[in-house]
């Protein structure tokens, strides 16, 4: 076969030669017939050479199956005897993966990059995350980091912390590759800490402090108790709060709700609310000012403000 994997729609040629001593037992003059899967193909060029070898060549001009079995058969006593087979596959070379981005999960200490693969290639296609430790703007590469090969069908891959330097630049991209070709995504030049994503903070109702004169708690205020993600108190973080009344679609955003500091937990008041009203509140944090990804929103907290 000219090639067992070809470009979808391209042409493929095959040749079948049958040795005379194969033909001896069957004695009678015979003919080679080609089948594509179960379908007999029209007559093809055929020729018995001086040395007795029976040869037939066939060309499939536009092969538009992603997979098919091409069988070389002999016509024998009105039956088609399959003598040889070739598996033909067809598809496309991969397109450059797009939407390439990376996130450093602070808790698991794993750098996970994800991308959008192009249209299906109909062929087994490997996606490999390639990366090099680099200097400041990834102009020059230092030592390579071990390739990360995405599991079948997955469009993400994760690099463990022990292969990374969290505060050094990494030149990183993803390569798509199959039998027909390869393609690369755009490159990112990041240090893992710049794309760190923290676990969501915890938001709770603050216990009414016994000493505090309850009149101090104005009707339009809620006292909130917050706690940042575990093992993140070495990072300066800024947090923002969103709230709305149950059923309302739009959220009111208070940003920043907690200014950048390394304080790990505390109580803060949220005022300017309606009295005797139920509110749903959520908090999220980000490494700030040194930058990272926003954490997911905390679990919702439902509280009701005091009567007037």
């Amino acid at each position, binding site marked *: 076969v000219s090639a067992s994997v070809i470009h979808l729609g391209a042409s493929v040629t095959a040749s079948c030669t049958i040795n005379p001593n194969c033909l001896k037992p069957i004695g009678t003059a015979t003919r080679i017939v080609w089948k594509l899967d179960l379908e007999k193909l029209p007559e093809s060029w055929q020729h018995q050479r001086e040395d007795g070898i029976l040869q037939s060549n066939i060309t499939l001009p536009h092969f538009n199956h992603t997979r098919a079995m091409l069988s070389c058969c002999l016509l024998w006593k009105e039956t088609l005897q399959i003598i040889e087979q070739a598996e033909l596959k067809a598809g496309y070379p991969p397109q450059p993966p797009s939407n390439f981005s990376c996130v450093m999960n602070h808790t698991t*200490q794993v750098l996970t990059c994800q991308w959008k693969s192009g249209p299906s290639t109909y062929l087994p296609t490997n996606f490999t995350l390639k990366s090099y430790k680099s*200097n*400041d703007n990834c102009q020059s590469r230092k030592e390579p980091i071990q390739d990360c090969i995405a599991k079948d069908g997955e469009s993400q891959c994760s690099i463990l*912390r*022990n292969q990374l*330097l*969290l*505060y*050094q630049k990494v030149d990183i991209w993803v390569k798509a590759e199959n039998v027909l070709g390869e393609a690369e995504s755009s490159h990112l030049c990041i240090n893992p*800490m710049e794309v760190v994503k923290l676990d969501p903070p915890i938001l709770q109702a603050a216990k009414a402090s016994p000493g505090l004169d309850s009149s101090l708690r104005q009707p339009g205020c809620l006292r909130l108790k917050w706690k940042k993600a575990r*093992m993140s*108190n*070495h*990072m*300066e973080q800024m947090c923002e709060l969103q709230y709305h009344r149950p059923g309302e679609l739009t959220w009111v955003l208070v940003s920043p709700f907690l200014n950048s500091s*390394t304080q790990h937990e505390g109580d803060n008041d949220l005022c300017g609310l309606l009295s005797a009203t139920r509110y749903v509140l959520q908090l999220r944090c980000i490494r700030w*000012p*040194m930058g990272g990804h926003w954490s997911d929103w905390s679990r919702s907290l439902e509280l009701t403000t005091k009567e007037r």
Partner: protein
Amino acid sequence: PLDSSNHLPPSFFPQIQEQVRKIQNDIEGLQQRLCADYRLCHPEELILVGLYLGIPRPSVKNCYSQDLKLVACLNQLYYGLQFYQGLVRALEGISPELAPTLDTLKLDIGDFAASIWQQMEDFQVVPEIVPTQSILPTFSSSFYRRAGGVLIFSQLQSFLDMAYRALRLLSQS
């Protein structure tokens, strides 16, 4: 007077601050565990064992001296961090419960050293590489390894306090 040619970029110290805090958090976790699990809570209770183990300390005089020289101090910090990375590696096997945090500590020290190295590379200066293997202590029993851990973590905290003060001073100049 500081050597005038090199200055630390504004972004350097905030990042170092974060890295030092992370390492100190790692150490606190290890110290709490050694106290809770093995009742080894105070380095002052292990002075005699310390004399016996003979745990070396890296020199830090360039970061203490009055005429604080940036590159000389960075070089000594880099040397010290490599040294402590070696000491922490010698503690491997201290206990299964401490192993994950010990690995994290090693990686965090390595990151801090890489930040110092990167800054020196930006100053076109090549830091001194430490043949740490030869000077590291060996611990002949699990007790000695745990006691060594308490002493090393305490020394490393003081080293980090000193590094933090020196780098803050250098970044303000």
